[in-house]
């Protein structure tokens, strides 16, 4: 895909959202759905002196959270995918704990780790790590057995198996998992930033909502989406670079 075509596509996509949004706003004509124009004007107004600080704190949290979640989740998922015994023990554990509404654990996390940054990071990690574990595990499980044969005949050790086969073969899926994790992390900011802080896009949007300031709220949402969009594009670029063998 030419990067030119990509940007063109992004413009189309963006335009489509705007048109849809504008249409709904005009049809309903209520303050709950302000027009895109009004929202963009508002963003221009408040971005520099009000929103920037929120964007920066949220971005930091997301990146840290994602790094930790990938750093823990991908190796665990790989191990589960490769060693059937580990999978037999950890899969049920994941299956039990994934569906737990993590927000219900919020008070416990706060009691254990305080009201500061740590708790927020832990919440992000707790929410996204399961997607990462499951995707990496399934990616490894889906590698056909015969791919391993050359290395088996070379007497490759476990670490070599991981480096030569499991990591490159699963990279595309890990990037998919990263995309999912990013999207989820951005959208759960909303819950992870409702305590102990007054900075972050989650706080900003929630506060605007409470203040019935739909203009601000939508401004926050748009900025948040844009932030997510940029993170996605970074992953796309990484994929193009690392998966060029496909």
């Amino acid at each position, binding site marked *: 895909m030419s990067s030119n075509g990509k940007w063109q596509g992004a413009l189309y996509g963006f335009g489509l959202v705007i048109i849809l949004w504008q249409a709904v706003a005009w049809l309903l004509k209520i303050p709950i759905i302000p027009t895109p124009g009004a929202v963009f004007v508002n963003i221009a107004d408040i971005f520099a002196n009000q929103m920037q600080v929120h964007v920066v704190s949220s971005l930091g949290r997301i990146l840290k959270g994602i790094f930790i979640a990938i750093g823990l989740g991908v190796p665990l998922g790989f191990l589960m995918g490769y060693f059937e015994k580990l999978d037999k023990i950890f899969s049920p554990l994941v299956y039990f704990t994934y569906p737990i509404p993590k927000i219900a654990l919020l008070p416990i996390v706060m009691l254990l780790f305080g009201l500061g940054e740590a708790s927020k990071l832990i919440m992000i990690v707790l929410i996204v790590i399961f997607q990462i574990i499951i995707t990496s595990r399934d990616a490894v499980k889906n590698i056909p057995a*015969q*791919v391993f*044969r*050359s*290395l*088996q*005949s*070379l*007497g*490759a*050790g476990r670490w*070599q198996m991981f480096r*030569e*086969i499991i990591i*490159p*073969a699963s*990279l595309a899926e890990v990037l998919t998992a990263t995309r999912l994790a990013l999207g989820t992390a951005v959208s759960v900011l909303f819950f992870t930033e409702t305590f102990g802080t007054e900075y972050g896009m989650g706080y900003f949007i929630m506060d605007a909502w409470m203040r019935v300031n739909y203009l601000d709220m939508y401004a926050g949402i748009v900025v948040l989406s844009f932030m997510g969009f940029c993170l996605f594009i970074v992953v796309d670029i990484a994929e193009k670079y690392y998966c*060029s*063998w*496909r």
Partner: protein
Amino acid sequence: MIEIKDLTVKYLRQDDFVLALERINIEIPAGQIYTFIGPSGCGKSTLLYVLSGIIKDYTGRVLINSQPVDPKKQRIGMIMQNYGLMPWRNVYQNVVLGTKIKDGQRRLDEYGQYILEQLGIDHLLDRYPKELSGGQQQRVAIARSFILKPDLLLMDEPFSALDAISREEMQELFLDTWKQHNVTTAFITHSVDEALYLGSKIVVLSPAPGTILEVIDNPCFKMEDMRLQDDYYDMSARIRKVLDKGR
């Protein structure tokens, strides 16, 4: 030296199994080339999987230099029927994969360079496998196993995707390197001609489940101008007869 005693291999399926090899007994003395010939599906590849430690679930005894098969300890060069290239590694990386795993050596030495040139793939180093033709892929696999300088060479129809002339060149190259390093080799082929040209003994297998029909001493081996000798026709006819009888 390879000793195989009463080797039987089954593939397990959902609720039944496939008997691939049955009571195979054979010894390949150190430094010898044995060629294996047999009908499609008789278990030749399976035998190599056992020798290379890929299949561990078999009955019988298989010893390499009096030790159980352990690819960690033995230095096994294997050319797989489907080449066994890593799609995410380019030609260069695929070629040095063996020495990288075995010796931590990611560089091609002079010998490696020589092999690549001989195989005619030295200009393809930055290609990924999917950007190669079938024969080019096969030559990458050959290069990998030669460059490894193995103690045991397992070749599963290594020249099947090469044109007649390249094939002959590769056969020469193989014999050359074999003469230098004297590698014990199990060589699977479908060509009676190739079996005669390369094997000091020729092992003829029966259709599935594979059993050994006959192990034939090959007088043609190391013969000059083999194809012009009378022995060649006799042997060729004899192998064909054994193969045919086995059906």
